């Protein structure tokens, strides 16, 4: 079983670290400390931390912080960052106004 799948793993008491107050996800202003705490509370995958804290869910959709979040989580979990599956990729690749998304061309061969 992969380390991240054994949710009974106890990562020990949460010890504050320098830099915990530092923003990691610039869009949603999620800090290193929040990410570390979430891992300690049992959120062992990027998807879970992202959904719970919103890091990587803002306007840029994790373009800037995805790698940083993964690094912090991996250190906390004592695994290689490669073992952590990045969040899934979804449209739209850039934010798009509802009015623009609503107006479609090209589908009916026009």
């Amino acid at each position: 079983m992969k380390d991240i799948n054994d949710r009974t793993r106890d990562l020990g008491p949460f010890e504050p670290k320098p830099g915990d107050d530092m923003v990691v996800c610039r869009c949603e202003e999620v800090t290193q400390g929040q990410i570390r705490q979430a891992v300690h509370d049992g959120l062992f995958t990027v998807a879970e931390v992202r959904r719970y804290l919103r890091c990587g869910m803002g306007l840029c959709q994790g373009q800037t912080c995805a790698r940083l979040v993964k690094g912090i989580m991996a250190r906390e979990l004592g695994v290689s960052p490669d073992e952590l599956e990045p969040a899934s990729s979804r449209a739209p690749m850039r934010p798009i106004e509802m009015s623009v998304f609503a107006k479609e061309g090209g589908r009916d061969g026009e």
Partner: protein
Amino acid sequence: MGTRIAEHPILGVPQKGRLVSFTYDGKTLQGYEGEPVAMALKAAGVMVHRYTAKRHEPRGIFCAIGRCTDCVMVVDGVPNVRTCMTPLAEGMEVRTQYGATAVPFDAGEKDEASAKDGGAA
């Protein structure tokens, strides 16, 4: 503060559109038509594009290519406009963004609180 490069050793004299006026928080500034709004602001010495929703911290240009979305401002009344990707046009109204609006936080927080009170039981 960033200023315009008059002549570049490799690129020569930068090619620019016509000089146009726009407003930044009500002040009239000038920039070149078609250049990103963020560049016109940078050339005018504007560093802060917005203050964040939670921590009210200043942000400005970061990636300059439309990825990070840190440079968003309220442009012509629309919030969250990526100024590094939006071409400058004559008469544009550019405002510092506070959270998701152009209302500075002192006045804004009141509005937000009352809306929330109406919502949460």
